Every structure is written in structure tokens, then in C-alpha cells.
């Protein structure tokens, strides 16, 4: 790893959800060839912000997210989460929500949410209580005893979000969590997520393909180029909160979306 010259590390005990990425690159080998997935990416996310990563397919935004989750190691550069390097998954610092809800089909919704706590040997009673709170937060009170096959796509993704939140990590990483949902469910889930974000004050880093979703949700949009993935633009979304459906037709919204689209079209 390179020295963290341009990063001032926070106290390692802090759990504020800040993310500091400096000079991160990732290279992987397939059939003898080096593929540069991510190249020289640096940015910082302040605690409590909602940041969206967009870019053309294969631009390494998911790779970047996997590295922030500690699921993959960067080839170069450094990533600090809450002021400390993230070498392995740490559910106390980072919660992850995937595109597929990835629920364990043999467990009930409640047991799925409890899963990360059970891994740590948390007592059953405490687990139940925390899972109940998390399910309530995502609007699934009373559905805890259902198995995933008894839930709709949107409900499954809510359970998955509850599971990401159950250990109260200050940072939530979301990898195209609503991509598999239909348009209507997707819109309501977006509003739901903003409500949860406002209620919990977490830092959220959200990957999406949808420009509308990006502008609608974000404080800041980070645009990445096609492979090798680099940052080509960062936009502050100045729209007031709470966001509402009416803003989608506004001029500010349209010009922000157009600006992102021009970048993506250029690099695609």
C-alpha cells in the first residue's frame, strides 16, 4: 500500500462513517491479460452524506464499492472507513446491500436480519429486539416470520436493507439495490431509503445505472468513465430536501441529469 500522504487519518476509534479514498487502483488478471478495472481514484465522503456513483457498465463502480466493503483488496492506494483502513469486511463499520437481496431462503425475514448478529454470538433476545427495530425502520413490521419466498421483490430488498442496518454501521454501501425492481417499486423504495437515511443520519454510498435515481437521491453524484474507471466529474445536487416527485420535471434536475449523460455518452 502507498503511504497515506494526502490523507489525515482520524482517530481509529471514531465511527463516523467518513470515507477517504486515495489513489485507489485495481488490476485483475483474466486469461493472462491485465485488466485495469479502477485507476487512480481519489475522493472523500464526509459523514452523513448521500453520495451516488454512476458510470457506464464496467466502469469499476461496483469494484470500488466491493473494496470499500473490504470484500476486495485494492491493487494500489488506500481506503479509510471511519478513519481506519478496511482490509476485511467489518459489519460494525460498513453495511452492504447488494443488487440481489441475497437473503438466505431457509431463514425467516427476522432470522435473516439477525444473521450478522448471530455470527457474533449475540444473545437470542437481543438479536430479536434489534432485528425487530431494523424491520420496523424499513416498514416491515409484522412480516418477520415470513420466509423470503413469501415476500415480494421490494419487501425482500427491504429485509436486505434491514440486515445491512442491524448492527448500526455508520456507513451503508448499496450496489444497485433497486435495479431488479420494477419502476413503481423502485420509486417508492427510493423515497423509503431517503426516509431511512434522514432518520438514521448514516453515510450512504449508492451505485446505480439510473441517472434519474442518482440525481433524485444524492447530495453529490460522482461520475466515472468507462474502463479503466476514473472520476470524470463530481456534481453537487443543490436540490432541497425532502426531495419530491415534482422536482423530477424541474430545470435544475434536468440540467444535472444532462450533464451526467454527456459524460457517460462520451466515454461509452
Amino acid at each position: 500500500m502507498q503511504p497515506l500522504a494526502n490523507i489525515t487519518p482520524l482517530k481509529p476509534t471514531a465511527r463516523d462513517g467518513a470515507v477517504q479514498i486515495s489513489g485507489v487502483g485495481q488490476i485483475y488478471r483474466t486469461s493472462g491479460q491485465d485488466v485495469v478495472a479502477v485507476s487512480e481514484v481519489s475522493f472523500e465522503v464526509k459523514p452523513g452524506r448521500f453520495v451516488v456513483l454512476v458510470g457506464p457498465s464496467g466502469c469499476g463502480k461496483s469494484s470500488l464499492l466491493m473494496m470499500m466493503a473490504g470484500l476486495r483488496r485494492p491493487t494500489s492506494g488506500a481506503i479509510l472507513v471511519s478513519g481506519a483502513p478496511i482490509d476485511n469486511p467489518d459489519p460494525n463499520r460498513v453495511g452492504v446491500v447488494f443488487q440481489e437481496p441475497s437473503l438466505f431462503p431457509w431463514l425467516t425475514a427476522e432470522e435473516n436480519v439477525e444473521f450478522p448478529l448471530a455470527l457474533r454470538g449475540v444473545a437470542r433476545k437481543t438479536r430479536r429486539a434489534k432485528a425487530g427495530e431494523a424491520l420496523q425502520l424499513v416498514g416491515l413490521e409484522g412480516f418477520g416470520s415470513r420466509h423470503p419466498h413469501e415476500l415480494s421483490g421490494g419487501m425482500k430488498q427491504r429485509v436486505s436493507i434491514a440486515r445491512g442496518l442491524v448492527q448500526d454501521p455508520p456507513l451503508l454501501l448499496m450496489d444497485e439495490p433497486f435495479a431488479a425492481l420494477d419502476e413503481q417499486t423502485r420509486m417508492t423504495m427510493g423515497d423509503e431509503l431517503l426516509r431511512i437515511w434522514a432518520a438514521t443520519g448514516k453515510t450512504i454510498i449508492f451505485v446505480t445505472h439510473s441517472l434519474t435515481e442518482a440525481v433524485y437521491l444524492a447530495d453529490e453524484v460522482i461520475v466515472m468513465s468507462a474502463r479503466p474507471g476514473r472520476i470524470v466529474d463530481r456534481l453537487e445536487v443543490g436540490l432541497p430536501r425532502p426531495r419530491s416527485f415534482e422536482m423530477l420535471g424541474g430545470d435544475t434536475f434536468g440540467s444535472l441529469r444532462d450533464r451526467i449523460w454527456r459524460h457517460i455518452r462520451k466515454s461509452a
Partner: protein
Amino acid sequence: MSSTMLRRLIVMSLIVLWELLPRCGLVPELFLPSLSSTLAAGWNDAAEYGRALLVTLYEVAVAMVFACGGGILAGAIVGSLPRPRLLIMPMVSSLYAVPLVILYPVFTVWLGIGPESKIAFASIYGFLPTMLATVAGIQTIDPQLLLAARSMGATLGQRVTRVMIPAAIPTVLSGLRVGGALVIVGVVVSEMLISSGGIGYLISRYRTILESAHVFAGVLLVLALAVAFNALMRLIERRSAVWQTGSRAGRNAMVQETAAGLQPARPG
């Protein structure tokens, strides 16, 4: 008429025909003794059949432990390690096509004509499908589930016990069903070939002295054994794979969701 009704009707009429055809002299009693004379033969020599049943049950039980236990263990190891899988699986698959009964005379030379040779033969006979199913069960585990578990901080051991094993259970059970059935076949067939006890031995002995009623009494006993095994497997499957009951419940959930007005709160 429902298919269950129809099925029962077919079984009933077969039983009635079994009694009537020999009685009316349409079929000679040597070829097919009537149901009542078969039951009478079994009843009169109940002690002999009981002893034989105990021998067969003992052989089946021990072979079941070897075949299923060994098959699951070997399948789990081979299935989770890519290199051994590539080496071993083609051999195992082609071995599966060999009529293993040709090995049985060799087993009697090695182990004698008592229960040991039957147990050895039936164990190997049932081992292969169980192992193949376990390998398949492990290979079909959704890698996304393992990734999700890792993101929640699951260790390798936890991923095996809490994700891989439960995820593989349905496939393994279907392998057990085939493997267990083959264990019964293996035991009975080997008893009929060369042996000194067991139901297969009784069937074979009574056949040589043209005691058809006693032959059929033995056949009924084997039939009962197979039906009992099947019922047991069903019970286990139902208990351990509740979650496998398809996606219809999921669609119902969507309807309920809309009906219950599970609407998200507005942001803010």
C-alpha cells in the same frame, strides 16, 4: 375425479384383482398365489419372516450409514475443492454407469456370505448417487449468498455451517432418496444371490422349492420396507426444506402488500 382418488382406486382394484384372478382359476396359483393365501403363508411362518426381516433391516441400517454418511462427506469435500472435483468426478460418474452387482461375488470371497458382504455391496451401491447429489448440491449454491455472508463478517467455518450446508440440504436429500432406495435394492438383491439369511434369501429359497405363496409374502415385506423408507424421506424433506415451496407465496405477498396499503412514509 381427483388424481389422489384415481390413484387409490387403481391400488384398490389391483388388490382386488390379485385376490380374484387366482381364485377364479384365471391364473395358476403357482404363478400368482391369491392375496389371502400369500398373507396366510406369511402369518403361518411369521417367526421365520420376522428373523429374516431383522437381518435385512440390520444390513440396510448399517449400509445406509456408510452410503449416506460417506456419500455426503465425500461429496462435500470433493464438491468444495475444484481440483479434486475435476480429477474425481468423471471417474465417479462413469463408475455410476457400471452394473456394480458384478462385484458382489468378489465381496462374498472377501467377506463371506454373511451380512458383511451385503453391507459392503449395498454401501457402495448407495454411496455413488448420494455423493453425486452432494457435489451437485454444493456446486449449485448461489455465490451471492456466500459473498453476502462474507460482507457480514462470516468466517470460513461459519460460511460452511451456516450457508453451504443449509443451502445444499434439498439437493442432498434428493440424493439420499435415490441412494437409500439403492441400499435397499442392494441388500435384497445380494441376499437373493449368495447368502444365508434375510428376506432376499427367503424369497430365493422358497422360489427354488416352488412355494409361490411364501415367495410373494417375502415380496410384500420388501415392498413394505420400500414404502416405509419413502414415507420417512418425505417426512424429513418436509421438515427440513419448508422454504423450497416455490414462488407462488411470493406473488401472493405482493397482492397482500398492495392490499394492506403498505405504503412508505414520505421523505422527511
